[in-house]
């Protein structure tokens, strides 16, 4: 199998990897914020439920969660299983939303009380204070830890193969299994490196952009 053929086949798997990555980000970024609001709620039971949920998700392996989302409905309720890719993406979104929510919470809690009070005495509404005063400062503070999670997400996508979703690593393994050639397995590293490299550059740019002020 030629280098080009292998590259073309891996590119197929890479597309799935990208899809898992992209949809997870789009879903988990806002869902994480909702979980943050829930876990910071003043209503104790709501706060407790959200915190327990975050604890369960962060305390169990993502691999197990993927298996559960896909096989769970059939094994427990005898229901029809979701399409594999959908199951993977749901598990990823829930998992990453929980991690993101903790980063958001850390960011929000790190904003000094004085910023809220300054907004209050100037007659701003709670929403205005959040969006016009606090949010931007939170974003600036969470970009570095979020960057870490996002790079981790790139590599975590390879977990999708536990339910036989053909992402990049699985695509390489298939070639290895069928063609009895080994090098594609190492070649996939180049894809991951390239992708995480581009992301690192973008994240660095974002950090620099946000660094126009200190504090």
């Amino acid at each position, binding site marked *: 199998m030629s280098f080009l053929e292998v590259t073309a086949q891996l590119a197929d798997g890479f597309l799935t990897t990208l899809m898992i990555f992209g949809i997870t980000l789009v879903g988990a970024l806002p869902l994480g914020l909702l979980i943050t609001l*829930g876990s910071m709620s003043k209503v104790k039971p709501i706060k407790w*439920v*959200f915190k*327990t*949920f975050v604890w*369960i998700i962060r305390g*169990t392996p993502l691999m*197990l*969660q993927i*298996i*559960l989302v*896909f*096989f*769970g*409905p*059939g*094994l*427990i*309720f*005898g*229901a*029809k*299983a979701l399409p594999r890719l959908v199951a993977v993406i749901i598990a990823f979104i*829930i998992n990453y939303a929980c991690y993101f929510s903790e980063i958001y919470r850390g960011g929000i809690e790190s904003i000094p009380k004085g910023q809220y009070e300054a907004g209050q005495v100037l007659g701003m509404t709670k929403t205005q204070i959040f969006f016009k005063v606090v949010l931007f400062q939170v974003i600036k503070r969470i970009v570095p830890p979020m960057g870490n999670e996002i790079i981790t997400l790139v590599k975590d996508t390879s977990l999708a*193969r*536990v*339910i*036989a979703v*053909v992402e990049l690593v699985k695509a390489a393994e*298939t070639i*290895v*299994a*069928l*063609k*009895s*050639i*080994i*090098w594609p397995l190492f070649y996939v590293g180049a894809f991951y490196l390239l992708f995480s490299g581009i992301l690192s550059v973008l994240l660095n740019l974002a950090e620099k952009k946000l660094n126009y002020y200190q504090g």
Partner: protein
Amino acid sequence: MKIKRIAAMLLAGIMTVGLCSCASTTTSSNDSSSEPASAAEGAENSSAEGGDWAYIADKGTFVAGITYFEPMNYFDENGELIGFETEFTKAVCEKLGVEAKFQEIEWDKKEIELNAKTIDAIWNGLTVTEERKENMAFSTPYIRNKQVVVIKTDNADKYKDIESMAGASCAAESGSAGQSAIEADAVLSQNEFIGASAQKDVLLEVKSGTVELGVIDYVMAKASIGADTDYSDLMIVENVELQPEEYAIGLRKEDTETLAKINAAIDELVADGTLKQIAEKYDLADVYAFN
């Protein structure tokens, strides 16, 4: 409230999956393995009113859980799925009047896939074992395969027979027929054993020199080792034959009606020579079970 339900489901799920994986790895202990099986039966009754065959006939498709490997299920130059099992599955499904579908699975999750009904059969060179019989039903075996020892060609003179292999490190896929063959062999069972996660990883271990001997099945070995592959420096040791194994289709234990229909279809395919033809086409005549 929704979150609560998800959390409850998660907890229940974690426990169930735990039980299932216990059931699939433990060899005896009837109590623990019968529980998830009966749960699956209950589920089945609620989802399909008719028998087990009605469930398959209703959806009109029969999903075979496979992994890709030559010569069982693989792709030709045009990207068409071909192979012995591919054509065999299609031939059986044609007799049954349903459409054959192929779903790639992770091999170590085949029992979960089957019980979760994400596939209808494990049909991919599945070895019949006593342990598996407790959790699934097997069709008539159609291939009688053997386990062979794979070594580096450099070691051709070193390992000529089973006696010379005493003390050499030995790899096989964990839980595979290869492992049981090693355990059953007087010499190899005394050697250091490395459990790999797949048969192809066994080849990788041998090639990279991390073990001396690899035990895999003959069909796989014949297809993977050759002049124009990355494993051209590996060879099968002639004259060393380990415990033979049989391949059959794995079905849900309660799918008795389906099993009967499939066995009848196999009988027909054997009788009219179709199955033998397919076996010859994929160079499997020497392991064909109905000679």
